């Protein structure tokens, strides 16, 4: 037994309202750079739907993940080492930008710069890839909320499969029946096929917390990982020519903070915590013949952190006591293995994913309500779950390789919890028959309710900090003197995207030194025309802080922005200012300005 720790995540899909806050905050934090415009480390898909990139689940086409060969040995679905090497010069199965979408921006400048005329200026969409005018035909979320599903619903690979199996009898029933959201990040798998596909060996799994990362120095852009990942959560940065992926916000995790997507989640549906697993058993577990048994195999790999033998083995592997303690309090372990309500996404890819999902019960509840039933009664709910074959089978294709019974069992647990807690809330005696119907104790069900419904911050996120003896490295202090040329700014002959990245400590050191020792505006030379507002001490106005001044900067009716050159009062100019002063709710402050403009 070789015990290793793994950071995991559970998402409770019942709570996801599809607001995309996680996607947006993640993008702002990690992929708002040139070359990663189309990259969404976190995206939220509406299911049924095609997902992102389109139809990524169709592994017959994309060849992601692992498969068993004829001898029952685990091999990459896209081919072995030799065939990967032969395909190096042009990756045989590679999503193109059109499978994602062509990122764009708008020509906002026209709105301001357009000469006065009869027509309103229009901000045309401009491609961020070619810089030319473009037509927007798809995006990261084009089919959000089942948009276009009458035309495109059949393109969902899971619907396609279910329809084939049921011979079209349920045509379009999906769209009428249910809809839910599926937020996706990198699965940080125990058996990652991206890593196995990487010719350079640049992708690695951290021993301490199992986070899968790409070494940007070692990556040579062979792009085999994009093919290898069945979830298509490996992205190719087309500016740097390197692969990038979800980092599980490791700089935050190391200091005990939840990931950005979790922290900003409006529905508070994400849970973070540790798993302890047996690294020696992973390959064996991923090689189980029947795909529907992969779930059980994955369960067996996860170790019970309360087991003294496991604890002793963990200590022998150098896992500290506070980490073992965190593993014992781990909400993700509780949801996945104790309560068994969280399921892995697509276990049939054989990658042993470590981001888990509590399947949604809400479609069932909503349907019962609409039909006028008591949607909180567990008898009704159980019956409905059994009757609603379509959503259950759909969920089973996502989470259990098609094993509908397993999904039913989870949904019944959720239904029982709902019903049981309603009884208690109404002041009735707890009805222990309800938890018993799903094989649970009353107390256990109450604890599950606390974790899932109350979901306190410190119960949702149990993240042990990286150890103090490593703190120096985390702050980059241990390496600042090792840095080439010592603490000094360097300019790369290949431009900013080349050379070794400047450690943050050194960039800050230089910025502060500039600021303290110079009379001029801080950062003017060293930041190459960019403005770092954090370093601005009010000493003058750095270049680029404000747009360049025009000849007549005063706020007056003569200003060019308000139709300069025209005599008399300008209704165009007065309109917006009057309405904005009204909206601000403080007319006294704005009134003089408004009057001045009207005059």
């Amino acid at each position, binding site marked *: 037994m*070789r015990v290793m720790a793994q950071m995991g995540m559970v998402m409770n899909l019942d709570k996801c309202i599809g607001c995309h806050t996680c996607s947006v905050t993640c993008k702002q934090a990690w992929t708002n750079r040139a070359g990663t415009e189309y990259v969404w480390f976190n995206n939220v898909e509406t299911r049924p739907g095609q997902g992102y990139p389109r139809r990524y689940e169709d592994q017959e086409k994309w060849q992601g993940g692992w498969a068993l060969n004829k001898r029952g040995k685990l091999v990459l679905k896209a081919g072995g*080492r*030799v065939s990967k*090497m032969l395909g190096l*010069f*042009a990756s045989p199965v*590679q999503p*193109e*930008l059109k499978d994602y979408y062509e990122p764009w921006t708008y020509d906002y400048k026209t709105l301001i710069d357009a000469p006065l005329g009869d027509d309103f200026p229009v901000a045309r969409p401009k491609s961020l*890839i*070619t*810089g*030319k005018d473009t037509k927007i035909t798809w995006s990261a979320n084009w089919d959000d909320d089942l948009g276009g599903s009458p035309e495109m619903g059949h393109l969902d690979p899971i619907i396609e499969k279910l329809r084939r199996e049921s011979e079209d009898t349920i045509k379009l029933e999906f769209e009428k029946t249910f809809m839910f959201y599926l937020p996706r990040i990198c699965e940080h798998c125990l*058996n990652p096929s991206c*890593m*196995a596909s*990487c*010719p*350079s*060996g*640049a992708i*690695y*799994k*951290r*021993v*301490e*917390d199992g986070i899968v990362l790409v*070494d940007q*120095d*070692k*990556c*040579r*852009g*062979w*792009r085999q990982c994009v093919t290898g990942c069945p979830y298509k959560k490996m992205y*190719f940065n*087309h*500016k*740097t*020519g*390197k692969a990038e992926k979800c980092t599980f916000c490791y700089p935050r995790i190391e200091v005990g903070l939840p990931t950005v997507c979790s922290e900003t989640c409006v529905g508070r549906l994400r849970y973070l915590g540790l798993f302890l697993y047996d*690294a*020696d058993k*992973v*390959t064996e577990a991923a090689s189980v013949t029947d795909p529907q048994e992969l779930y059980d195999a994955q369960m067996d790999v996860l170790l019970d952190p309360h087991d003294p033998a496991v604890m002793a083995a963990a200590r022998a*592997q*150098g*896992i500290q006591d506070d980490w073992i303690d965190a593993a014992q309090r781990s909400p993700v372990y509780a949801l996945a293995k104790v309560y068994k309500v969280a399921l892995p996404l697509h276990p049939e890819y054989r990658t042993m994913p470590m981001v888990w999902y509590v399947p949604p019960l809400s479609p069932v509840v909503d349907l019962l309500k609409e039909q006028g039933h008591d949607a909180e009664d567990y008898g009704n709910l159980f019956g409905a779950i059994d009757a609603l074959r379509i959503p259950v089978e759909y969920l089973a294709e996502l989470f259990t390789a098609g094993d509908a019974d397993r999904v039913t069992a989870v949904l019944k647990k959720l239904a029982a919890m709902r019903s049981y807690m309603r009884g208690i809330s109404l002041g009735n005696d707890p009805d222990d028959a309800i938890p018993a119907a799903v094989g649970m104790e009353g107390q256990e069900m109450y604890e599950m309710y606390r974790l899932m419904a109350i979901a306190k911050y410190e119960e949702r996120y149990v993240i042990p900090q990286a150890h103090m003896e*490593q703190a120096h*490295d985390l702050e980059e202090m241990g*390496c600042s003197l*090792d840095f*080439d040329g010592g603490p000094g700014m360097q300019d*790369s002959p*290949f431009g900013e*995207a*080349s*050379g*070794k*990245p400047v450690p943050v400590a050194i960039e800050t050191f230089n910025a502060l030194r500039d600021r303290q020792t110079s009379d001029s505006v801080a950062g003017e030379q060293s930041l190459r025309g960019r403005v770092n507002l954090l370093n601005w001490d009010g000493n003058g106005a750095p270049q680029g802080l404000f747009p360049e001044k025009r000849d007549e900067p005063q706020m007056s009716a003569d200003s060019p922005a308000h139709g300069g050159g025209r005599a008399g009062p300008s209704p165009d100019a007065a309109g917006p200012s009057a309405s904005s002063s009204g909206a601000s709710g403080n007319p006294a402050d704005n009134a003089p300005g408004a009057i001045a403009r009207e005059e």
Partner: protein
Amino acid sequence: MDILLWGVLPYVMMVVLVGGLIWRYRYDQFGWTTRSSQLYESKLLRIGSPVFHFGLLAVIAGHFFGLVIPMSWTKAVGMSQEFYHFNALFVGSVAGVGTLGGILLLIYRRRTTGPVFMATTRNDKLMYVVLTAAIVFGLWTTLASVFLGGEGHNYRETVSPWFRSLFIFQPDIAAMATAPFAFHLHTLVGMLLFTIWPFTRLVHAFTAPLHYLFRPYIVYRSRDKGRIAGRVVAAPVRRGWSAVGTRDRDTRNK
């Protein structure tokens, strides 16, 4: 002049190539990439790139055969001059035409596909000019070696001895000087190509991932220096991370 061209320049080229590669490897790991444009366009690349690369591998093998292996050796195993030349012409032409066709297709793709052209730097354009010139002149010498002056030119008596003599630091300048102009031109352009090599995207060739055939599938690395899976390892490692190809469960299980 001959001394400068065939006695000095080759060594300057070697110094720049080796020194440049070492410097770039140490300094610019992040810029060391294929800079693939497959994301933008795949159809033409799927044809052009393998044709070009595999053609190039054959060309390299041909250069090795022609330049490194002395004529006396091939004679010793009973290979006649005619047989050698026929092979060189046949295989060399196929490989050369393939390489040239491949790169022309890739250049056409680069020019006509908007996003790919946008992503082309000046460095790339210079590199393409030199690379294409080297291939074109090389193909010319292949033909010249057979048809020039009626019965062709036997470069294995001029260029090859000079090439081998470079490595023992006693360049046989006289031999090279007697070779025809086409060979001089190809050699010079070739040297220019190797001189700019370390500073272009061509560096990716020097990190061809052959170790992929042997490394374990799953790679673990520790955040902590000098510690892998809880065990202390002796070798010092790069800052923050231990090296690629650390022990993993696949090798441990065996």
